[in-house]
């Protein structure tokens, strides 16, 4: 089977004033259709840069990134490919002058996809995250958890096959975060989308994904790939499960080891 997303030895170098910073070095990854993959690592390990390169926000310096077999060679993705992708930012990144509903509709307007069918999905998605009562509210008028939910469904309004999530729930309190994680797993089960999820939270990584890519800093690089062989559907009860704890320990160990080696 052809991977939906493939990274082949991708390196990203940022040129600062007098120095070069290697944000990502020699990164390779393959993600197949319908997979839920997590990239975990300490801040500054280049995990965000990985999916930003994938979505064409910033070009790779070396290596090849393929989406459904197409290599864009560091150029901006074409609109047809962008239609396949939904990107969820660390912050909700809503536009304050648009209502909740208008924010969700924005991608449809810009990508010229304002079909009646997609319009229907706007309302379905708003219902799905229980925000019908707030559809005509402005972002400042709703809570942080709600704005992040809007950010998530905005990325899904054009029904993309791929969701790229850059620490989407990092700024939220743990209760809201767990709730949104469960909602996300449900969405994934129902829609079978391919998801790449970035986090620095080891438990979140184990809970959500089938495979965890562990990254380290200086330079940002891949250190290990851990398959999470836990049954699905997953629930929050699993956090106390022995195997769950074993996985989180393994990941914490992998990340911790890296930090120690840096100090030495």
């Amino acid at each position, binding site marked *: 089977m052809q991977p939906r997303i493939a990274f082949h030895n991708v390196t990203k170098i940022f040129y600062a004033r007098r120095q070069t910073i290697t944000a990502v070095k020699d990164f390779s990854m393959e993600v197949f259709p319908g997979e839920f993959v997590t990239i975990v690592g300490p801040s500054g390990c280049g995990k965000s840069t990985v999916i930003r390169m994938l979505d*064409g*926000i910033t070009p790779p310096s070396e290596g090849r990134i393929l989406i459904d077999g197409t290599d864009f060679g560091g150029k*901006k993705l074409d609109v047809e490919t*962008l239609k396949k992708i939904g990107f969820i*930012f660390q912050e909700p990144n809503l536009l304050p*002058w648009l209502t909740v509903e208008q924010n969700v509709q924005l*991608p449809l*307007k*810009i990508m010229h996809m304002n079909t009646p069918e997609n319009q229907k999905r706007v309302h379905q998605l708003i219902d799905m995250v229980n925000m019908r009562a707030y559809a005509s509210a402005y972002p400042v008028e709703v809570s942080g958890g709600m704005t992040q939910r809007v950010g998530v469904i905005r*990325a899904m309004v054009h029904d993309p096959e791929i969701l790229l999530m850059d620490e989407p729930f990092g700024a939220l309190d743990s209760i809201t975060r767990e709730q949104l994680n469960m909602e996300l797993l449900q969405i994934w089960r129902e829609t079978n989308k391919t998801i790449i999820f970035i986090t620095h939270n080891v438990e979140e990584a184990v809970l959500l994904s089938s495979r965890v890519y562990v990254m380290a800093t200086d330079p940002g690089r891949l250190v290990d790939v851990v398959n999470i062989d836990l049954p699905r559907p997953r629930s929050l009860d699993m956090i106390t499960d022995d195997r769950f704890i074993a996985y989180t320990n393994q990941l914490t160990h992998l990340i911790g080891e890296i930090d120690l080696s840096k100090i030495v």
Partner: protein
Amino acid sequence: MNAKRKTLLHTIAPIATFLLVFIIWEVIVVSLQIPKWLLPAPTRIFQSMIVNFGDFWPHIWMSFITILLGFLAAIPLAISFSALVTNFVLLSAALTPYVLLLVTTPIITLVPLLMLWMGFGINTRILTVLIQAFAIINLNSCTGFLNVPTLRHELMDTFGASRVQRFFHITLPTALPDVFTGLRLATIFSTTTCISAEYVGGNMGLGSQIIMYSQFLKTTESFACIFYVAIIGLFFYQLVGVAQNLIIRWKI
């Protein structure tokens, strides 16, 4: 404090200040018997504003229409110019120094030359107001257009937005508060510029009347004209405020 009381407070407090200032002024003038050519009492000025309204009106109208036309013409010119300059690096590099020169040079220094070329008519004064308003609106709009958060641009990247879509969906709405700051400042500068241009030449407009009455020591009439200028300036400033509240309905 509830909203009603707050509104009431904000209506009554300025009126009270107004009355207080003019009462003190009146008392000083009357009690010290200051001659009216030196400093007329406010009641005399208000009286003149009403009694001589027929004489003032053509000039009030002239100043008003000069500011209005110059200011209105400057808005689309300045906003589209700043949009182009901030979107194209070459244009920005080529024009920014000269735009800055336009802002820093007092426009009043150009008026004698403009009058030499174009005569003493209203067209010269409208053009002067236009140049001044353009410089101010352009400066503030540029600031706004350049201050769009990177995150919003990245959002547009993820949708593959075109340059035009980007401008209308994020750049313009993000910059609107700055654009309106420019418009507010431009009303003040337009009024000042209009009156200054009327000082320099011609015999129409409130500026020319202030000069004339002052030369004849008709200080009361002079003051009456100054008060009308203040009213015109305030009117345009508030007009922009009203427009801003109508257009920017979201809170940042």
